[in-house]
């Protein structure tokens, strides 16, 4: 890596990031920061993480050439980084394994997590079981309804799932509740944050645990095509899968990086979850970043067909990459995501998560404008089995 060296020592990415939490949590964040720095320097920790990613998660996963859909679109070659093939079906497990190993190293016996779509909750429940820790997952009441199969999976794995009924009853409120739990139980508990946001050191830690996505994709792309990709595309809610893919390419200035936010019912309707595209900087959940807020600084309710993107903030590094112009951020609507979902099912035999379908929607828009010798890597961040009830319901089918 060349000149890009963010965050700075206090966890800032330019004006973004930082540590905005109640005083009670400051010592816990400092303890976490030190423990993480030590772990990173410890060859044994790195070796164990590597081994777990191979043996338990199933890495490396393929970079798959989606030939049929590429041909159908008649433009750039689309490659899919198959995070959906990881154990538990999404990229989330990379970070959950990393944080759980760190929790064990710190002697914490209890882990808590927030979850939106339930993928991070399932990943955390999974690793908690694997490393013998008690696990409690906070999930908004509304998300519990639309992601009932993931709720059941978490319970099968021995986790306790607690419904959050405050605020908008979605991911942001689950995050508030998990923070409240952590404030109360800070000595016994490790808070496994599921996205590259929150107070320092979470954004950098989550990015580092997910950079394996981009590191693998870079090598695989060179092997398969003989050169770097022209463009990277990933969906952005909090932005963990996107930053994991983007980070190892930041110094490769010729590689375009595009994050796709949830356009919901359309940006003009206000019913969406696209803070980078439409929001402005503010402070929420421990960091300064782009937010969806009203003129009085109150956080706005969000809407997305996918629970995992239904969040009014975004990781601070994306805020920085947007302002610096290094990455671009666009939105795809519910309808566009749904169309992309079906298209991938029928062209490649892969059912993508609805979150991921937003990235695919933009790739399908962009590919026809590019030459057939150019390549796009899409982060296929998760599989869509969890979403079949949502998709069926939209089509009037009762499963």
């Amino acid at each position, binding site marked *: 890596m060349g000149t890009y060296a963010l965050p700075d020592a206090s966890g800032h990415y330019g004006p973004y990031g930082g540590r905005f939490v*109640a*005083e009670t949590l400051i010592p816990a964040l400092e303890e976490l920061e030190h423990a993480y720095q030590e772990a990173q320097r410890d060859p044994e920790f790195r070796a164990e993480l590597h081994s777990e990613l191979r043996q338990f998660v199933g890495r490396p996963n393929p970079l798959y050439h989606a030939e049929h859909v590429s041909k159908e679109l008649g433009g750039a070659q689309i490659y899919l980084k198959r995070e959906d093939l990881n154990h538990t079906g999404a990229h989330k497990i990379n970070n959950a394994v990393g944080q759980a190993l760190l929790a064990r190293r710190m002697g914490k016996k209890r882990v808590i997590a927030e979850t939106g779509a339930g993928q991070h909750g399932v990943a955390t429940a999974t690793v908690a079981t694997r490393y013998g820790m008690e696990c409690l997952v906070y999930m908004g009441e509304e998300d519990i309804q639309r992601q009932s199969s993931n709720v059941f999976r978490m319970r099968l794995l021995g986790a306790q799932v607690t419904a959050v009924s405050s*605020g908008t009853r979605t991911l*942001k409120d689950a995050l508030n509740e998990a923070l409240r739990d952590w*404030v109360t139980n800070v000595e016994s508990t490790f808070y496994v944050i599921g996205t590259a946001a929150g107070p320092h050191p979470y954004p950098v830690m989550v990015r580092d645990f997910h950079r394996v996505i981009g590191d693998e994709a870079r090598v695989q792309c060179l092997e398969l095509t003989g050169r770097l990709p022209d463009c990277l595309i990933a969906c952005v809610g909090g932005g963990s899968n996107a930053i994991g893919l983007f980070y190892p390419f930041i110094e490769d200035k010729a590689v375009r990086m595009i994050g796709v936010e949830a356009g919901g019912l359309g940006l003009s309707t206000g019913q969406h979850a696209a803070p980078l595209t439409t929001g402005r900087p503010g402070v929420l959940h421990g960091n300064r970043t782009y937010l969806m*807020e009203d003129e*009085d*600084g*109150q956080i706005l309710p969000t809407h997305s067909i996918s629970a995992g993107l239904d969040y009014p903030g975004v990781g601070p590094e994306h805020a920085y990459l947007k302002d610096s112009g290094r990455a671009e951020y666009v939105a795809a609507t519910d309808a566009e995501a749904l169309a992309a979902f079906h298209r991938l099912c029928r062209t490649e035999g892969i059912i993508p998560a609805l979150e991921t379908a937003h990235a695919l929607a933009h790739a399908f828009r962009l590919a026809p404008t590019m030459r057939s010798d150019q390549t796009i890597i899409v982060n296929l961040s998760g599989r869509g089995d969890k979403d079949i009830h949502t998709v069926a319901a939209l089509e009037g089918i009762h499963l």
Partner: protein
Amino acid sequence: MSRLAGLFAQLQNAGRAALIPFMTAGDPSLTATVPLMHALVAAGADAIELGMPFSDPMADGPSIQRASERALARGVKLRMVLEWVREFRTTNSYTPIILMGYLNPVEAMGITPFAEAAATAGVDGVILVDLTPEEGRGEAVALQQCGIDPIFLLAPTSGQERMVTVRSMGSGFVYYVSLRGITGAAQADWAAVLQRVQNLRQQLGLPVAIGFGIRDAATVAQVAASADAVVVGSALVDQLAECATDQEAVATAIRFIKPLAQAVRTTERRSA
């Protein structure tokens, strides 16, 4: 001398702690806010913490969360909160008012416009729960330039380095969070808390207010023996939430605060 410094000097002479109730602006109704502030003073409050509602109050327990949600649903804006303080000041020029809330609504207004408007309205101190001294250097200076005390929190988990930072940046008083939890949570280990207070006051050279988990007169008396101020929040907010009319809210506030005010007035402080 600022109202807060004046209050603590006066109570030092009187040999007792201050009682500071917390209420959320705009709850249980928009029209009750100013009458309630006067009622708290009439019942014996020495200063008032007025909550600025926020959509995501991550350090608050269910009582204050719900109060914030209700206030926002009634359309409360930060400018309305400042207007209520101004209205209160037309007939009360002596009771310190401390605004308490989260950074984002303040930042949306802009820290300097906020500090100027708050000073004009008659605000004395500001507590922003999610603004640490490290991140809040600019905000603290902007507030102090307008004559408003930036009040920081300290917790049982805070280390020595923290004391030094808060000492250099905070003024008015220090808010000591008496337990490792959210507002309205279970009772603290008071013996340990009170032992820490003596220490804090000496190190910081600032009065120490204690809050979180104080719900009744007996606890107020216990805390008032050591602290410079006792903050009662969730318990009052809970009582007010039950009130159907403004008159009932005012009567409830007076009934609830009186014995607590009595408790600080009959508790002699151990030598500070």
